[in-house]
């Protein structure tokens, strides 16, 4: 395959007062590729996106987006990219159409095309009948769709999506992904996304698993999962500590366990489980046998699970103030 490199990152790092958020990343992304950053909160995903979008200055290293240097050629980079931020970035006191119009204005979309592109974007994101409503009355999913519509107005080469479907219901997430895949297909647009949803990562052509600011694995979802051959078994017993110990000793299988569950990998789960239940000295309460997922890959590589962490203090404060703010202004 003849691959044209659209994003090229070399030894990119970011320090925040003694804390290394991003630690010497190197990778490249080809045109038309969907490239995913997968990792827990605080792994350095957002910081990397901010550096690639010229919002944060790297401490060291180099990066090029669409052929432009993210440190010295801010404006050219900015013209070539679209961004969907993790938090909403719409003006909710304006209508959907006004939000789009302002975007077209600052990105200098040719005047003769503005109206058509806005209508097209609205239609495409199924927002046409809400175009002149205030954004504050929109649902979370509608806001997200509007942001995607907006980011496409200036026809970016690369679309950055920072946790694009965070907090949305599964149906909305499916719908948004439908559109994004179509977009890549039709316009050969490059998508760079961060996520900690494993199922979302499955849409990617390649995934970089990132933890503590470092890439610890980079491959296609299929290859990553094939590292874990066989079936994934998750069991709950009366005494997980004892059971984990026995499985390790008796069958020589590597297990990871918590008081809530024991997980391990075997060649054929359907055959193994009945034997296990019979031979284990502690009673088994429940059993699940399934195909390995990227979750399991992450667990295997890092020894930890990616979990949706609770909303941070800052976010809680913000939503409180948002409610207050309605009354105040």
């Amino acid at each position, binding site marked *: 395959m003849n691959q044209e490199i659209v994003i090229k990152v070399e030894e990119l790092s970011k320090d925040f007062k003694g804390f290394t958020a991003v630690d010497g990343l190197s990778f490249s992304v080809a045109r038309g590729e969907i490239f995913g950053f997968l990792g827990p909160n605080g792994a350095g995903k957002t910081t990397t996106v901010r550096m690639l*979008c*010229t*919002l944060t200055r790297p401490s060291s290293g180099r990066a090029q987006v669409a052929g432009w240097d993210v440190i010295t050629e*801010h*404006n*050219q980079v*900015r*013209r070539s990219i679209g*961004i969907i*931020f993790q*938090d*909403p*970035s*719409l*003006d*909710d*006191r*304006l209508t959907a159409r*006004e939000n789009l119009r*302002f*975007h077209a*204005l*600052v*990105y*200098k979309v040719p005047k003769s095309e503005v109206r058509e592109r806005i209508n097209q974007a609205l239609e495409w994101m199924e927002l046409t009948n809400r175009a002149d409503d205030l954004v504050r009355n929109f649902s979370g999913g509608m806001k997200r769709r509007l942001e995607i519509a*907006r980011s496409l107005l200036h026809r970016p080469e690369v679309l950055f999506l920072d946790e694009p479907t965070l907090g949305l219901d599964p149906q909305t997430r499916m719908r948004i992904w439908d559109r994004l895949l179509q977009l890549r297909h039709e316009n050969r647009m490059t998508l760079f996304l961060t996520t900690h949803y494993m199922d979302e990562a499955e849409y990617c052509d390649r995934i970089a698993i990132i933890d503590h600011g470092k890439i610890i694995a980079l491959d296609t979802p299929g290859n990553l999962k094939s590292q874990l051959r066989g079936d994934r078994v998750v069991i709950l017993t009366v005494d997980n500590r004892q059971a984990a110990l026995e499985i390790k000793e008796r069958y020589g299988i590597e297990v990871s366990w918590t008081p809530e569950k024991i997980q391990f990998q075997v060649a054929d789960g359907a055959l193994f489980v009945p034997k296990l239940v019979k031979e284990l000295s502690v009673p088994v309460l429940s059993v699940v046998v399934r195909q390995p997922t990227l979750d399991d890959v992450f667990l295997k590589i890092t020894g930890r699970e990616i979990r949706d962490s609770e909303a941070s203090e800052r976010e809680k*404060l*913000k939503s409180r*103030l*948002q409610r207050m*703010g309605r009354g105040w*202004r």
Partner: protein
Amino acid sequence: MAMIDVNCIYMVWLRDLIRYFREKSQLYGSLTRPVLWLFILGLGLRGGYRGIGNVNYTQFIFPGIVAMTSIFTSIQSAISIIWDREFGFLKEILVAPVPRTSIVIGKGLAGTTLSLIQGCIILLLAPLVKVRLSAVNIFPLILVIALMSFALTGIGIVIAAKMTSFQGFGTIMNFVIMPLWFLSGALYPLQGLPWWLNLLVRVNPLTYGVDMVRRLVLGFSYYSPGFNIAFLICFSSLTTAAAVYFFNRGEY
């Protein structure tokens, strides 16, 4: 990269205006305040006030109320940057291929425009307090209010760039807006003040704005018009420069 991007300035300006006219509560709220001051406080204190010439107290504070409207409106308008940051819209502007200086200019012009609109509404109240505005003075008056508003918007932008959350809004009210206004000579004659108060009033840039408005509205002032204007121009250049500097440096 050029500093002036007309599209961006226009967008920032237009957005603030649309929001202003859409949120009627803000408009009404900012009109009640001056009316309260003018008619309640003004009439209440009128009896105890020993006049300057033939100007009664309500008439005396009229220029101050006009100035107050412009202080509140322009600083509040600039401080909406903090809201934009909290609600996320600021990111959308900051990541656009536009110079930040143009964002500052757009914001400054928006604050000035809104402040002028509010100020002019207050000027319409002049007949009610028997202040006679001469037609010749209207245009200079608008210029002075605009100049003062532009300067104050600059202060607001500096505050917004330095403040990390809008929890500090009350603080700004107490430590910036109120002192600026109380020390501007808007509410009391500038004669016979204790030396320390006199000093504070004299270092307050707003004093000269209020004094100039007083000149154009009531026909007398404590400082010469030339000095007032020169001072206002210097002051507004300074705050604009500071606004550009701090906004450009800010991490968002």
